[in-house]
């Protein structure tokens, strides 16, 4: 591991003041420390932001404000999250292990890096790690990588479960920075790889996430389902966060939210599927039609084409379970 300096910031102002080129903010460290050990992340200076006063979950009007430093386990165990945003609790609980969730923070979960094997292997080229060096995943090991929104430069996926639920809920990310404060929506925080896969998010150097706010829970029933290679402690091959609001008099879909994980460089909000379903009968045929409308733009690679029917079936099954 490259030598670095370490400092613990007491508040956001101190963290921002200490930030200089080569600095990274340290949250729970469950991804960053590993990447430093692998030589993928090479900061000169770590500013520890886990002691900033952002470790509470509070009511925010009819919504919820989740501090950036709230640990994943505390988020999933919070009564308001369990009762009002069960999809979010389930997404967080489906990620990582008990130990990792105790350490990992809310903001760190959003900003974790892809688990693409080439990104994590410094002996191999990777456009995300070393721009313009190439992408060996496209001709190589891409079984777990993207089918939607990828580019010729990068087919990495975003690994978070939590972010998929937040994308379906329409969460807002509160950011403070050297110039000003701003609010970035999810989806919107993460970006597609395009020609700049080294940039995972729209955040600029020095910007610091302070909180995530959730609007009031959307009407209807919700669920988070995740398919992975083993029953626990594995990243998603495909996951889906879905909210379905059905008018029971007419059995038609009043509104719905669908977000997919494991398929793209971002938590993928399935807006085409949502549009296809609004006002449509709440039936399996319509769910299939909506899922296929979304996946019509999928561009699978030779060894991850299985994700297209997997995503389709997962969307359909999850929606079927949400019919009242």
């Amino acid at each position, binding site marked *: 591991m490259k030598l670095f300096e370490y400092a613990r910031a007491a508040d956001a102002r101190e963290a921002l003041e200490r930030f200089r080129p080569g600095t990274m903010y*340290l949250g729970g460290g469950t991804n960053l420390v590993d990447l430093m*050990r692998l030589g993928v992340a090479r900061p000169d200076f770590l500013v520890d932001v886990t002691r900033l006063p952002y470790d509470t979950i509070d009511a925010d009007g009819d919504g919820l404000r989740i501090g950036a430093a709230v640990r994943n386990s505390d988020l999933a165990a919070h009564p308001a999250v369990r009762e009002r945003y069960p999809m979010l609790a389930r997404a967080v609980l489906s990620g990582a292990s*008990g130990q990792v969730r105790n*350490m990992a923070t809310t903001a760190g979960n959003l900003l974790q890096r892809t688990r693409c094997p080439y990104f994590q292997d410094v002996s191999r080229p990777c456009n995300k790690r070393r721009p313009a060096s190439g992408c060996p995943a496209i001709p190589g090991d891409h079984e777990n990588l993207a089918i939607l929104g990828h580019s010729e430069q990068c087919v990495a996926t975003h690994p978070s479960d939590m972010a998929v639920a937040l994308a379906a809920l329409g969460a807002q990310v509160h950011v403070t920075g050297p110039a000003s404060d701003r609010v970035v929506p999810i989806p919107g925080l993460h970006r597609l790889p395009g020609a700049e896969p080294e940039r995972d998010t729209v955040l600029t150097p020095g910007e610091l996430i302070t909180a995530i706010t959730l609007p009031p829970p959307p009407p209807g029933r919700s669920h988070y389902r995740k398919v992975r290679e083993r029953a626990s*402690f594995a990243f998603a091959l495909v996951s889906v966060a879905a909210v379905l609001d059905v008018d029971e008099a007419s059995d038609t879909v009043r509104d719905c939210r669908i977000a997919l994980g494991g398929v793209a460089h971002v938590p993928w909000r399935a807006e085409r599927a949502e549009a296809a379903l609004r006002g449509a009968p709440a039936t399996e045929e319509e769910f299939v039609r909506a899922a296929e409308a979304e996946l019509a733009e999928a561009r699978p690679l030779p060894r991850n084409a299985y994700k297209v029917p997997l995503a389709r079936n997962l969307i359909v099954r999850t929606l079927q379970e949400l019919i009242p």
Partner: protein
Amino acid sequence: MAEMTLRVNGSVRELDVDPRTSLLDLLRERLGLTGTKKGCDHGQCGACTVLLDGRRANACLALAVACDGSEVTTVEGLGGAADGDEPHPLQTAFVERDAFQCGYCTPGQLCSAAGMLAERGPSAVTADLTDDPPLTPEEIRERMSGNLCRCGAYVNIVAAIQEAAR
């Protein structure tokens, strides 16, 4: 080098550490507490699990400097008596249930189970998220999924944890 203070198994230690040092390496190489094991060193196997401020954590993923001011309990400090010779109920149950073969993962299993038993709330397999569900074998397996056992002693590990939880 960075100065730091750590309370380890009840003793306060003043330390001067290279910021690159993991909590795991600090415990094993500096403090001689070799009960905590290094398996994968990537947070994937759980052999390095300790209690950090009372909560289970992967010591390999924690930078020691980031633990300044914290309290750490390792497998050496899990027992109840002042001299540490009194086994923790989990340790007794692991022996009685033959919950290991080679034993390498056992310190991490024990610390993880101790942390897990103190946790509240649902897991990924809990049907009703508003519940604090009973600790069924299915719940134990899910909650202990961060601890791998290459010998495959899982059946007895689950039984031992269930017994200690009673």
